[in-house]
């Protein structure tokens, strides 16, 4: 078949499957781009915080409803999974391992403590987090809310205040 004939067939095919009205009906949808990891899996495995953190998360995973006889809900598995994903993203290799405390609503609180202050990250549901940094300044404690729409500030607070 001649090249002219092939081009004609291509053109006809293009016109038949891509009419202008198809393009008009197309719409733009946001594409979710996975946030790049700050710590690659190999770095996590070399870190000093990973093992004790996994141990702490595993320790609270089996807690069921009313585990404390105070009416607390069971610790949510999706919260634990999300907490790990969060930590992989924000922790430096030499970061201090957090303490994981179960909350009454089934969420958890990740906590760090140093002479510079305390950081508390509450995770109620996946992606439903809030964070407060209690900074020590000249003997007084100042409460600083940390924005959590992105995790950059969290990473910065940990990097500056909670390293092993």
């Amino acid at each position, binding site marked *: 078949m001649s090249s002219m004939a092939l081009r004609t067939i291509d053109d006809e095919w293009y016109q038949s499957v891509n009419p202008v009205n198809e393009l008009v009906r197309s719409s733009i949808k946001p594409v979710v781009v996975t946030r790049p990891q700050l710590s690659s899996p190999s770095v996590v495995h070399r870190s000093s915080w990973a093992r004790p953190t996994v141990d702490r998360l595993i320790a609270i995973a089996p807690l069921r409803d009313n585990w404390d006889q105070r009416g607390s809900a069971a610790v949510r598995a999706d919260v634990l999974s999300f907490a790990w994903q969060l930590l992989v993203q924000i922790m430096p290799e030499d970061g201090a391992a957090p303490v994981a405390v179960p909350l009454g609503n089934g969420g958890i609180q990740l906590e760090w403590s140093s002479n510079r202050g305390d950081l*508390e990250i509450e995770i109620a549901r996946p992606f439903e987090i809030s964070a407060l940094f*209690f900074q020590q300044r000249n003997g007084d404690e100042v409460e600083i809310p940390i924005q959590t729409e992105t995790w950059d500030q969290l990473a910065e607070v940990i990097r500056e205040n909670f390293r092993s």
Partner: protein
Amino acid sequence: MPSAPPRDANGKITPHDHPEILDDDYVLRHIVPPHDLHPDPEKKMTRVSSGAYSESSDGGMSVDILRWMAEDGLNAEHYLADETVGATRIQVRSLRAMGLKVGWDPDGGHPHHGAVWGIKQTHRRKIAKLAVTVRKAEGET
């Protein structure tokens, strides 16, 4: 018998300030080890985490109403599950000053059971600092 707590259409107790829980009263929070505790190797201590002062998913932070217990001849540690469980007491005035509600919740297990409603993350740290140890939890230093 205290006045009945308010309930919704489903019979569930709603957040309230009970008039017979006075500002000068104290409520007792059970501290359950090890999960309520924060080990701090740098400061060489294990303290009560602020997370111990969170509300349950049903609503309200569970507490015991100490004066009512005393009036019925019960000591402060009466409802603690076992010897490993610790307890702290917080003055009702301090909680209400934060905008929290302190009410009666007899549905929560016993007639001296109360609840604190409205606790957000920022309140928990403040409550933890106001709380006075009545009995240390196992492992608490």
